[in-house]
């Protein structure tokens, strides 16, 4: 593990001949494309980490002639801003990734669901999209992409809520099963992938899976784009090989006084200083969709937690009980404890509640509220109480 340092990688933003990669993919069979992505070990870059090749394989296996590839660009996790950069810098690679996914699964139509706050990117994205459509037509392939805009709701980044939103309804997660690969957008088989995932998949086709698996670890193959913020002298976007420990990360990006790193945003985990050395950033440790927030000793972890809970209490869709009411109770609970209106042991009740939310909520939002809550309360209990 010692050798796995902070190898900077340039895969996502590397300039490639997009046309050539698309042509290469179109000369492959659907199975070959899927096989390469499977062999690369690529897992979804939005945070949940579902194997991309499997998602494509399941969608490809569906008999329905109408299928969709959806690019999830509703980047809303607090502290994440890498998809904005990717779309800004290498949009043609995103489009190419979608076309390749479309070819692999038999989808002729793609949708990009763009975060409402990123509307300012649209004019340039359309210029690039126009060029892309022209190129695809020249190659002689039937595939097109449309943009759909979000309106600022965090929940619309949840895949099924995103479909609801595209379909013109209130963005609320659906019951699963059925999963998107069998019944997704417009109730058709759909593969929904993160912006970065699509670009990575496209680069796997370009370089071949054998090249890709040289990077990363067994559980976390390849590299990842990180959005780094908080108490750091180096805020911004960095593409790093997976497999590093939080300690290695802090050594590079910390300000020398880091007491905690929030890995994976509000829905991720808080890693305290004492666990830096033995926590790996990746699916074997703490996974992240890219958000890395550093906190130094000047920060109150109560305030950090309060901020996250406030965020969730507002951004829950409100549909299911554990999430809608649970978020409010967690927030109210820590406020009461802080004010001395509830005993400090009430935090134990709240931890149990967080456990219930994890197992009983309808979607990933409610299921992950407990991550930040528990990891902050368990590691910074004094700061929360006093």
């Amino acid at each position, binding site marked *: 593990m010692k050798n796995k340092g902070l190898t900077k990688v340039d895969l996502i933003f590397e300039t490639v001949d997009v046309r050539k990669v698309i042509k290469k993919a179109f000369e492959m069979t659907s199975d070959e494309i899927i096989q390469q992505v499977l062999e690369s070990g690529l897992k979804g870059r939005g945070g949940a980490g579902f194997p991309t090749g499997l998602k494509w394989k399941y969608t490809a296996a569906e008999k329905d002639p109408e299928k969709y590839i959806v690019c999830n660009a509703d980047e809303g996790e607090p502290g994440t801003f890498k998809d904005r950069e990717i779309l800004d810098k290498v949009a043609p690679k995103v489009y190419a990734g979608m076309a390749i996914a479309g070819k692999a699964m038999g989808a002729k139509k793609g949708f990009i669901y763009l975060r409402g706050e990123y509307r300012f990117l649209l004019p340039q994205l359309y210029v690039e999209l126009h060029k892309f459509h022209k190129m695809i037509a020249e190659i002689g392939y039937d595939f097109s992409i449309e943009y759909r805009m979000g309106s600022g709701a965090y929940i619309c980044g949840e895949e099924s809520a995103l479909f609801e939103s595209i379909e013109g309804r209130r963005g609320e997660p659906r019951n699963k099963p059925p999963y998107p690969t069998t019944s997704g957008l417009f109730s058709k088989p759909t593969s929904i992938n993160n912006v970065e995932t699509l670009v990575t998949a496209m680069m796997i086709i370009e370089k071949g899976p054998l090249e890709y698996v040289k990077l990363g670890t067994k559980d976390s193959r390849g590299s990842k784009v990180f959005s780094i913020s908080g108490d750091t002298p180096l805020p911004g976007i960095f593409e790093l090989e997976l497999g590093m420990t939080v300690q290695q990360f802090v050594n590079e990006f910390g300000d020398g006084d880091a007491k905690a790193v929030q890995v994976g945003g509000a829905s991720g985990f808080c890693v305290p200083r004492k666990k830096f050395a033995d926590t790996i950033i990746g699916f074997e440790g703490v996974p992240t969709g890219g958000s890395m927030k550093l906190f130094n000793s000047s920060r109150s972890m109560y305030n950090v937690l309060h901020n996250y809970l406030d965020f969730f209490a507002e951004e829950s869709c409100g549909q299911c*009980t554990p999430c*809608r009411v649970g978020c409010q109770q967690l927030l109210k609970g820590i406020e009461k404890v802080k004010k001395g209106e509830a005993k400090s042991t009430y935090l134990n009740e709240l931890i149990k509640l967080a456990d219930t939310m994890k197992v009983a909520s309808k979607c990933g939002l409610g299921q992950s509220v407990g991550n930040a809550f528990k990891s902050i309360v368990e590691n910074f209990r004094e700061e929360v109480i006093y």
Partner: protein
Amino acid sequence: MVTLKINEHEVKVAEGTTVLAAAKTLGINIPTLCNHPDLCVAGNCRVCVVEQKGARTLVASCVTPVSQGMEIQTNSLKVRNARKHIVELLLSEHRADCTKCYKNQNCELQTLANEYSFGEHIFFDLTEDHNYVIDRSSPAFIKDDSKCIRCQRCVRTCAQLQYVSAIAVSHKGSEMKISSFHDRPMSHVVCTNCGQCVNRCPTGALTEKTYIDQVWDAIYDTDKHVVVQTAPAVRIALGEDLGYDPGERVTGKLVTALRQLGFDSVLDTDFTADLTIIEEGTELLTRLKKVLVEGDKTLALPMFTSCSPGWIKFIEHKYPHMLPNLSTCKSPQQMFGALAKTFYADKRKLDPANVVSVSIMPCTAKKYEADRPEMRSSGYKDIDFVLTTRELAVMIKQAGLDFRTLEESHYDSVMGVSTGAGVIFGATGGVMEAALRTAYEIVTGRPVPFKNLNIMPVRGMEGVKEATIKIEGTREEWKFLEGAELKVAIAHGLVNANKIAKAVSQGKAQYHFIEIMACPGGCLGGGGQPIPTSTEIRQKRMEAIYVEDMNMDLRKSHDNPEVTAIYQEFLEKPNGHKAHELLHTHYTERESY
């Protein structure tokens, strides 16, 4: 078939069955809140979560389909802990002032609280954090968001069963609520007051607006003569609120109970239902003649029935250009009201100013109807108070009556005699059947050609029904109808009504006469009927209605001697001047949003 294990018991069920339904076949009860047999599944409340072996999280049994080899635990420690938390969470956002609540002891949340949440509450009260305002603007029902647990049954009811969507989800997170268009008061949105949401609300968030105290005041006022009418669908459902099984008829006891409550005269809406048939049947035949023979362009066909006030408000909002297609007949309730303070008051030598007219209805929309400005043709408010079946049950309990031991008795007279045709108004297809029994006989001089007068094609729970009656052997004055095929249609539930209205509006349907009832099953499934409701319960009520019809001595409205008498003594002739003044009405175009 799929085999799975629930709590170690093996069970074999059809593919597509939910875990909840599979458990039920084993006699294992899983609690639910947002689930309702009439509605699509939601999976929102999470009360029904169970443990599935190998699954990362608990699963909601109401939405999870069974799969081969699945192993489910419905009562493990993990499940119980989660369920207790969920019930407690719901209680924390619910203003639990149960003793003040109209739904006390008929509240699904209360039942769950009794099972899962006795003792100290774990969580803090959240109702104080919200500025809840109770919406009392509708004359039919009250919306109290502080009691709402966001299960969305009402939302699904309004959209899926009624095609109205007067209420929908708005906002998110802690602010998420069930709201009207632009948060307007319920009196100022497209709402039909049908009360189907009230029937399905598991708590006291949606309740009918009660007038029980006002009715008691009138009864105790010795200067007032309080006359009460009972709708056909009340007698076959009231029992459910008084410990009887669905489908038990309690007509005789109902009459006795009303008398014992202190009403001065206990009369029957069925009488004016019979009168409606004479007026509406005449109107239909006249329209057919004027439009088809004389080419009158001022009258519209097909003609829609007008007994259901939910349907009236629906068409006023959504298809105002078809208002001329509505029969101008008032509903039986309002015909009764107009006559109670004219004909009846005269007959009993009462000052109509001292007559208080109360109706017992299976309906919440009737409360709105009684308040319409047109409904004052007697010179007074024709109907003073409308009580639902449920409110009557409350009064019976308040009075301490032991309903089961009451003697059976008959309605008073006048305006208390009725026929089986009046009774079947309570079921979808009933008005059509009653109208056909009379109209066919007027035109041909012979009874309708169906065994025992039972016109089976217009009966049943199908959403939209169609029938064609061939008219043969007509009397001289109806010669123009000889050999004609009278095409009729029946719809119940506004989602079905909308299908027909849309087809007619687009010129895609060729009917002469259409019966529409706003509620599923007709009035027997009305918004004022006992809770709970389901297809099975409504089916039983329907069977009871037809048994009631078969047991009547008279089965055809035109055979009702009181109806004959009222024309001779008072109304002169069907659709005559006086009848028009008292028994007919007009409609108002309303906003479509």
